[in-house]
């Protein structure tokens, strides 16, 4: 098995902030809009370096999305920043009409995604955002796994012409992908080869999947691990090719099992290579207050849950 080293836990939102800071210096067309969460989104440095390209819109997310759409007319590349809940559900129709249907080059950057924002509770823990965004025609949906990958993705989406939803989070999680690594939108990253089960994971559950693969290996099961940072467009070939060897799949995501990565994987497999599948995801429920680790355990989103799902799906082959 390949070894992956956590170089020190970091929050993915800081990876976004670092990427945006770099973009500010390298691309004059990049502008940033924020709805009263500059510190939470780590946009402070961009704001300090380029006050003329930073737009504080106040607690008014609908106007922020519309303004971002308008700023593309004139050649700007707007990055909007707020929590995932307020980046998607609150402004769905604005994104649908003014951004997606209008084909505008807006980058919707969403922090505090999922249950692991923790103590704030369910009002702020959106577990439906991947589904909401992936259903919009033309929308690219990215959920990065660590600090380094979030920074790389932030740089990559500025070069992509079209609307993007970039999802990241608040807690400090393992940082294990290469520093200044390449980021190819829509290209899965194979982290472990395996023959018994394929684990397809997104976001910080990729690290949990790597941990699960080690445990499974100790127990005599060979697990392939695929990092799906781009949920749409999905790298179907990478998944199908692995599943042709392993014959079963576990999907892992910090999202409702309805509408998430798991359902996208199930669709491409049912069309191409029908396969037993287990879903590590929240099961049509809201979250609640707690620490990130407590919540990941209670809602079955950690390495242990992935190990159990893998054993279950192998038995179904």
């Amino acid at each position, binding site marked *: 098995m390949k070894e992956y080293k956590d170089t020190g836990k970091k929050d993915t939102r800081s990876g976004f902030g670092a990427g945006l800071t770099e973009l500010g210096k390298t691309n004059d067309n990049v502008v940033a809009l924020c709805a009263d969460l500059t510190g939470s989104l780590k946009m402070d440095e961009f704001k300090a370096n380029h006050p003329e390209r930073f737009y504080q819109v106040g607690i008014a997310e*609908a*106007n922020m999305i*519309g*303004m971002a759409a*308008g*700023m593309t*007319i*004139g050649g700007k590349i707007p990055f909007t920043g707020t929590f995932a809940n307020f980046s998607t559900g609150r402004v769905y129709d604005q994104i649908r*009409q003014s951004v997606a249907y209008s084909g505008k080059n807006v980058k919707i950057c969403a922090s505090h995604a999922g249950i692991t924002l923790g103590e704030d509770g369910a009002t702020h823990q959106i577990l439906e955002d991947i589904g909401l965004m992936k259903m919009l025609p033309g929308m690219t949906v990215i959920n990065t796994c660590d600090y380094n990958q979030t920074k790389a993705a932030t740089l990559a989406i500025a070069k992509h012409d079209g609307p993007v939803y970039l999802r990241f989070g608040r807690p400090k999680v393992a940082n294990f992908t290469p520093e200044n690594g390449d980021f190819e939108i829509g290209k899965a990253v194979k982290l472990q080869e395996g023959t018994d089960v394929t684990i397809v994971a997104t976001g910080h559950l990729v690290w949990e999947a790597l941990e699960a693969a080690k445990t499974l290996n100790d127990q005599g099961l060979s697990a392939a691990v695929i990092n799906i940072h781009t949920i749409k467009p999905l790298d179907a070939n990478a998944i199908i090719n692995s599943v042709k060897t392993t014959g079963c799949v576990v999907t892992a995501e910090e999202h409702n099992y309805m509408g998430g990565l798991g359902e996208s994987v199930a669709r491409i497999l049912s069309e191409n290579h029908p396969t037993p599948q287990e879903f590590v995801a929240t099961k049509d429920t809201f979250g609640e207050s707690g620490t990130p680790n407590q919540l990941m355990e209670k809602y079955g989103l950690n390495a242990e849950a992935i190990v159990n799902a893998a054993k279950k799906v192998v038995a179904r082959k």
Partner: protein
Amino acid sequence: MANIQELEAFVTQVRRDIVRQVHKVNSGHPGGSLGCAEFLVALYQEVMERKEGFDMNGIEEDLFFLSNGHISPVFYSVLARSGYFPVEELNTFRLLNSRLQGHPTTHEGLPGIRMASGSLGQGISVAIGAAEAKKLNGDRHLVYALCGDGELQEGQNWEAIMYAAGNQVDNLIVSIDLNGQQIDGATDNVLPMGNIKAKFEAFGWDVISIAKGNDVASIIDGLNKAKSHSGNGKPICVLLHTIMGNGVDFMMHTHAWHGKAPNDEQLESALAQNAETLGDY
């Protein structure tokens, strides 16, 4: 300045285009379209500085955003007759595979359109964004938008109105089509909005009223006044007092023709009231 009589003749042709488009497919929104015919003709033929051809970024030209997208028949007619696409294409309004969708969209690549609209309340925000981009680009040209009055019931407008004043977006001229009507009846009966002028002024906008919103000369005067107020630190609101259904007697002063097409006989009557001046498509 163009001859007012020529512009009025342009308007009667646009009215013919509106009712003919809607009649052909037995759907669409003639009432609000007719009410804004003079405004859009004045804007495109006289007021806006426009470049030849069309490109999405619209650098070094004035821009217009239609927020109340359901008045697409008047928008399409004025765009076609201002040279953005062939006038004959008005024949395809609302048909399958047409670029002239029920509500305007960029999705089919129709020249002249820079945003999709139809779901209400989004146009001012988009116009503000375009205005801010013009400032960043050092482009001194103006951004225009049109909203319905009933549309102001959407909350997003007030987020946008607050932003524009608070951030001195003074290269923006938003016109409100004050016809006092919406689908379910008079705006005062559906959801009274009180004093719209006072509301805009309270939010910090420079408000200009055009009392005769269906009179071409009055519109040009009002919009030129608005232009002269630009660059003074305040966004500009033009309150355009219009008559829904203007120019077709049986469609006037009522919400009944908001989203209803005329039958054959009604079409004949409407066309008899508006001379063919530029040639029917």
